């Protein structure tokens, strides 16, 4: 591919999608947050105005990111990672409690959520570690270290408590798999995550019953064909039930009530003030009432009536669905798919393993956010509160994703320097 110099080197395809998503996102935040309390467009207290400020500032941030040497990110990845861990730990001392979660630093008038930045830091650190000549991801020792790099921030985020953000760290299984991790880990990871969530959602008893049932079924199917011992199945079942029990024990005995509340909110057990699945239900109504072309910008009756809770943040996609209809929502879905595919393409064309792992991490993180969020808003997945990248209201989130994406763009622009 013919490649020029300077700005021309930047992957403008990605940047245009980024700008489109941020722009469409802001338009919808404006609509979702508009109410009769605004004194005028330049009302500092309005959510849409704050978000506009964050967007403008992120343009400055982009210039700063692109201005740095590509090598800087690899060299300083360990330091960035450690600083990120320290800020996460610092929350336990200096953090401010908002909505039951101690996830914010408050500096002056601004709140900053370090967990949004930790994703990029972890991606850098993982890239650095796997990209090291001495690391062989097929060895167990190295696998363990890579897992520790991923798990540390997740473990610090989990007890804030912010299980949604911690869940996102599961995305790092994809770059590791890309670099040679055995497929078994993917299955195991998927299985443990399912077990974890179902334990909290349905309780130990049902989960244990389910495990015993599944193990029993598999045993009786395989009994004739393979000479497997019952004891193996019993042990697998026992380990699974043990895991489920320990999740349950930690949840009920180690956590405090406020932690449990937060978990229950994320799992949709608490906010259901009006009955099972109120949030999802209202979200489906809002999206479904959009029809082919939607009700028009700022004309959504559901959006205006504040029927959908958390609509500027986690449920922003329902505004798109209502006001822009099927055509508008499909455009957003296509933009996200195109962005992630493009990011994966960029990752694959990186010549250094560091950049490739980093790029893959970016694609995987974006994918998990997109998958979980839109799945939740359209009622396909249970309620797990994580934002839609570039769309949802929140400065830290926007900045975190911007940093994540533009470091990749910066690395890609210098791709040829790496032999």
């Amino acid at each position: 591919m013919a490649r020029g110099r300077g700005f021309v080197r930047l992957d403008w395809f990605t940047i245009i999608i980024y700008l489109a998503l941020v722009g469409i996102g802001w338009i919808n935040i404006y609509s979702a947050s508009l109410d009769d309390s605004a004194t005028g467009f330049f009302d500092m207290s309005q959510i849409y105005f704050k978000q506009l400020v964050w967007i403008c500032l992120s343009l400055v941030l982009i210039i700063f990111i692109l201005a740095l040497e590509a090598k800087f990110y690899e060299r300083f990845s360990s330091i960035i990672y450690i600083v990120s861990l320290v800020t996460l730990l610092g929350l336990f001392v200096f953090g401010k409690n908002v909505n039951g979660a101690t996830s914010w630093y408050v500096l002056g008038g601004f709140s900053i959520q370090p967990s949004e930045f930790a994703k990029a830091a972890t991606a850098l650190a993982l890239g650095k570690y796997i990209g090291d000549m001495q690391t062989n991801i097929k060895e167990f020792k190295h696998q363990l270290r890579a897992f520790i790099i991923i798990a540390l921030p997740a473990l610090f985020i989990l007890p804030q408590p912010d299980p949604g953000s911690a869940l996102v760290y599961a995305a790092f299984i994809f770059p590791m798999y890309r670099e040679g991790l055995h497929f078994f880990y993917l299955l195991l990871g998927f299985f443990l995550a399912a077990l974890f969530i179902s334990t909290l959602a349905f309780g130990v008893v049902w989960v244990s019953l389910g495990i015993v049932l599944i193990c029993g079924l598999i045993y009786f199917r395989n009994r004739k064909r393979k000479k497997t011992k019952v004891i193996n199945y019993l042990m697998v079942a026992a380990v699974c039930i043990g895991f489920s029990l320990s999740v349950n024990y930690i949840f009920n005995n180690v956590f405090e009530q406020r932690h449990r509340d937060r978990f229950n909110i994320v799992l949709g057990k608490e906010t259901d003030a009006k009955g099972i699945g109120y949030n999802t239900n209202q979200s489906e109504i809002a999206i479904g009432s959009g029809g082919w072309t939607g009700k028009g910008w700022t004309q959504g009756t559901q959006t205006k009536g504040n029927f959908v809770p958390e609509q500027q943040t986690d449920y922003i996609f329902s505004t798109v669905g209502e006001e822009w209809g099927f055509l508008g929502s499909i455009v957003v879905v296509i933009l996200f798919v195109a962005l992630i595919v493009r990011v994966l393409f960029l990752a694959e064309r990186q010549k250094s393993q560091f950049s490739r792992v980093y790029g893959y991490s970016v694609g995987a993180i974006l994918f998990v956010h997109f998958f979980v969020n839109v799945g939740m808003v359209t009622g396909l997945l249970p309620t797990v509160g994580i934002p839609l990248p570039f769309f949802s209201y929140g400065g830290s989130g926007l900045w975190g994703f911007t940093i994540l994406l533009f470091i990749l763009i910066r690395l890609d622009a210098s791709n040829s320097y790496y032999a």
Partner: protein
Amino acid sequence: MRKLLLLVLVLITGVVFAGRLFYLQVYDTSFQKLSENNAIKVIYDYPQRGYIYDRNGELLVSNQPSYDVMVIPRDLVAFDTLEFCGLLKMNKEDLVKALEKAKNHSPRLPSPIIPQLTKAEYAYLSEKMHKYKGFYILKRSLRDYQIDHSANVLGYIAEADNKIIKKNPYYQMGDLLGKQGVEMQYEEVLRGVKGVKYIQKDRFNRDIGPYKDKAFDTIPERGKDIKLTIDAVLQEYGEKLMANKRGGIVALEPATGEILALVAAPNYDPSLLVGRERSKNFTKLWYDTISKPLFDRVLQGEYPPGSPFKALTALIGLQEGVIDTEETVSCYGGFRYGRNRKLGCHAHRSPLSMQAGIANSCNAYFCTVYKRTIEKYPTPQEGIDNWRNHLLSFGLGDFMGYDLPSGRPGKIPSAKTYNAVYQYPTYKWYATATISNAIGQGEVLLTPMQMVNFTAAIANRGWYYKPHIIKNISGADTIPSIYRKKYQTTIDREHFDPVIAGLFDVYNYGTAAHLQVPGIEICGKTGTAENYTRVNGERVQLTDHSVFIAFAPKDDPKIAIAVFVENGYWGSRWAGRIASLMIEKYIKGEITRKDLETFILNGSLEEEYAKPYSDEPFKINQ
């Protein structure tokens, strides 16, 4: 492969989301409608519920205004909580708690802060209300009972539950409707029609005026008043007589089928089920599984009728021509059938003809008549079914079609019943196998309402109107046509006079001779019904039920009555006395036999009812 996994997942996710969005937004159109429900506000205008009067125009049930203090949390501004709490006589913590709850429910929708203020509290508060932005007073209408009796007749009103809302789209969450008695039966008449206003909401969820220029709005229609056939004085008196007893009294006007009194005991004060204490009181009544105050024994209790049933046995025998009024039947201390089998009888002179047979309640006489009635036909099956058809013509064995929502059909056995019991045709059965039916025991079960109905039919000499409780509906001035139709029994008129003469002799010299009312010719029949219960899994006989039917005056019947007192022992002990007092009260308006009245008013059977629960062996029929 490793390069492709995530890529494939991303593409699959995109396709799945596109499909889901297509389903939600294009394929399934029900969401548009749901959204409309959200964005157009419907306000209902509730009309006043109709009043209920007794047959003499006495007001039984009216409405009372009730005032709820409501709050819209979003509209609150800082206010003087100390003064506010003083006005409402509540402490500050409760107020804070209530406000918090309202806010959690919804910041924009009204929630009640204090429900159901009294009129005095309201008058005091309404002057100062303007000072408290965000609060307002909502006026509702509740039932106001002018009486403390007739709860089983009137029923009660309660909020519509999900089951009702699903079944009948008229009702919304929070709407009130009749749940029992007259309130339920005449719900559509009493409630009127609620008015509807559609309000368009703007994008800020504010009201911006009527939707489509009021094209769909309707005006409320006031509920209609109804007049019941109940005589409030008689009803109240009946409930007093039944104090501390269980059972029921039901009285009809034979000429019209109008229900004069419908007493179920124990009863409760209808006011208990109105207002702040409603759910507490209801729970208490609902869980009283021993005396069952919510169980209407008159309509829902199925009992063996006992001896009053003999009047029907006699009538059917005469109609079938198996006996005449002159023939005498001997009684040897009972009725013998088969080898060593005997249905016992009490001591009386013998032999007896029909009139004396009724007056003395001779079991042997009626068993003979019954056996002949069945055996008149070639097979017992035909005999039983023929006998049954006569009984059905008296409205027995059926729900009867009276205008109250609860009831039981009772039981009149048929050939099919006995074929199943005796496994016909493998085994055969004969009239004697069913002999207990002759004297109202055996398989026959009647509700007190059915007993009074056949009494009224006898009083009328062969016909009856279906019992009903509606006298008229204001405006329409009509009652349902089924209550204007005369039902003829299968018994010819001439057969009634000898039976009535027998019933008259019950008072002259028979089992109720001591209960005569001076100046009134009463015909009646005592009954003593055996009954059983289970104590710790064992079948235990309890003291007999005391049963009585009567009508008066003999030749121009004004009232027919059935009285049932659970475990009251012999017929004239409780039921007969109560019946004679009720008749005297209704016809004369006052009671001359004060001693008798005092005895009944103060009499209690609570000790009797406690026996099966005492966990000790007990004696019955004392």
